[in-house]
């Protein structure tokens, strides 16, 4: 069952196509990465999901139902470009935003108190937003995004502008929310975060879907049969090996690409035949970043 399902979504703007026939599914309870370079169409997609704009054609289902103007109360969205009313007090502002999501006043107050207590910022309730640092404002922003217990959380570059400590704090909260059943879409162009956090990803470029799937599966699909072998005999030097391409040779190990038709067993066999004492052996999988650059670079050719 998917919490969100996009089917052939198209969005045209004046002189370009922002979203070009994109379909994907976000499994319920997963953390989903929406990847793409700047200007790829991530924000356009998110705006369609959050009902800020409407798709020209195609279907968007939230929890099995076509999205409508009541859907936003089930979605928590933290835009990349985010702000708060500078002159408003923290508590008032959070209460306002929570009520706009449809929460009754009392319940909102209780929930907000709990969240602020958790972040140890309850004392800011009566402070004006402009008195707070950028990092502090991000925390307020995060609370505003999650206070109404959304089924689906959409975070657009959530860690931009956060220091490592706050970054970790938010990351932990995201994990916690996910464990409690919240599905999360995580939009970013920073690939290293994706590997850490997401189970599934979609990669879009120029409004088109380039790649979709499970992160580890994608890595396996994009493997280039690279292996690293470390051995103990330091005097052994292998400069060439029939059937393999040696990419890097050091006194204590090798980085090898298998030629066509060869397997890792062949590699081990021929190394042992050379008298190598194998200490470790592992496959080198490409990082999402490498795949990203490869795929995006390719599609731009």
């Amino acid at each position, binding site marked *: 069952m998917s919490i969100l399902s996009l089917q052939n979504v198209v969005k045209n703007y004046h002189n370009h196509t922002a979203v070009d026939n994109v379909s994907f599914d976000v499994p319920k309870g997963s953390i989903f990465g929406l990847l793409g370079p700047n200007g790829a169409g991530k924000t356009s997609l998110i705006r369609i999901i959050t009902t800020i704009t409407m798709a020209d054609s195609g279907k968007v289902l939230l929890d099995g139902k076509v999205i409508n103007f009541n859907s*936003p109360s089930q979605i928590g*969205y933290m835009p990349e470009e*985010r702000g708060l009313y500078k*002159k*408003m007090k923290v508590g008032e502002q959070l209460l306002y*935003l929570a009520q706009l999501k449809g929460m009754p006043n009392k319940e909102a107050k209780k929930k907000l108190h709990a969240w602020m207590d958790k972040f140890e910022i309850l004392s800011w309730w009566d402070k004006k937003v402009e008195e707070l640092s950028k990092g502090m404002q991000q925390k307020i*922003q995060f609370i505003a995004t999650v206070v109404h217990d959304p089924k689906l959380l959409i975070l657009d570059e959530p860690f931009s502008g956060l220091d490592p400590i706050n970054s970790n704090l938010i990351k932990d909260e995201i994990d916690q929310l996910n464990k409690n059943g919240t599905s999360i879409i995580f939009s970013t162009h920073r690939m290293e975060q994706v590997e850490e956090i997401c189970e599934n990803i979609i990669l879009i470029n120029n409004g088109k879907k380039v790649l979709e799937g499970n992160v580890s599966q994608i890595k396996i699909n994009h493997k280039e049969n690279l292996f690293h072998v470390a051995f103990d005999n330091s005097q052994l030097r292998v400069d060439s090996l029939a059937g393999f391409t040696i990419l890097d040779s050091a006194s204590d190990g090798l980085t090898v690409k298998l030629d066509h038709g060869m397997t890792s067993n062949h590699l081990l066999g021929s190394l042992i035949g050379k008298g190598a004492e194998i200490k470790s052996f592992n496959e080198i999988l490409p990082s999402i970043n490498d795949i990203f650059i490869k795929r995006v670079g390719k599609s731009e050719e």
Partner: protein
Amino acid sequence: MNKLWLIIKREYLTRVRKKSFILATLLTPLGFGLIMFVSGYLASNSMTTQKRIAVVDQSGILDEADLSNKQFDFDISSLPLDQIDTAYSRLGYDLLLEVPPISDLSTTSHKVNFYSKEKLSLVALEQIERKMSNALKTYKISKSDINQETLDQLEMSVTLDNAVKSDKDGDKSNKISIGVASALSYLMGFLMYMVIFIYGSMVMRSVMEEKINRIVEVMISSVRPFQLMLGKVMGVGFVAITQLFIWIILLFGIMMIFGATMSPDPAMGAGIGDAGELISEMGSQSDIKDILAGIKSLNWLLILPSFVVFFFGGYFIYSSLFAAVGSAMGDDIGEGQQLMMPIFIPVIIAISLVLPVLNNPNGPLAVFGSMFPLFSPILMPARLPFDPPVWQVLLSIVILIASVIFMTWMAGRIYRVGILMYGKKVTFKEIGRWLFVKN
């Protein structure tokens, strides 16, 4: 609906609770009262201090003339002109008049010279001229065979009085009630003008602030852009009502205190412009009772409800336009100045048409001007005290309401695109395209 209410509440409360709002609301009428008090005081003071005028009378006709005056103390000097022309101020005079001899009694004009270090006001000059011509006229009469009595009997004064019997007290269109009506027209027209600019630009600034602050995307992921815009316009509208209401009460209170401490003085109204002149003229011709009767004779049953409709209609049309312009602007107000021109121009045209409309309140200009929805919020209230045909008022209201709906819809379409548009210099062509962009 509930969300709209939340937005209205926030827009209203955050403004009304601001220190600057409270100060402006309380201090503006006080400042206004203070200005009125000071100018009234100064005016009445300048009335009581007489200017001393030395007169060098070479014609020899002024000796018998009655020159007594509240403002001026004429003093026939015994010194010849060449002795006094440099010395008059040392002798304690403010002004020196030289009346040349009259050679020909049949002349109908005569030149009198004055010497003064300070610039004289037009009013003072006219008063002296009148005094002099009266004196010369009296002299000419005494030299002729006409006696003063016959001449006085030739005076004829006509008062135009409307004899149409009305069911209300007082006359429908005597001079005073027209004066009262004109004053009311100005007041309502000016009030609209003020409201459009003060609160309309308040809406605009607020839209810009949300856009620049980048809170707008957070907001419209919870509410429709149109709800946000409408909530803002309505919230600021309530702010306007609150502020105007307090202003009117305070001004009324100040007037009462003011009226109790100072006797009504025709000079008080001078300098407030045409309406002031009318009032002062009225004050000199009649007493408060007539003015009250004039106020009473107005068709308040038509004026008040219609004004309320035009007030809100005008506010809605212009503030939603301001909201649309605000959404199209970047952080640079200077760059957006040209975007505001389409708002400024109709308001300024409308306010400059008030006077021509008043001159002929049921003429073609007035009728057409008060139908055009961008002008009607200013021009129709200006016509209201002059008993325009009811069908015209109703037609104008219908057009206005239709335009309010159309303009708000149009502004909403511009707004929803504009608030998400960053870093682009926006042209009118671009805005026009936004109208037809799909959601």
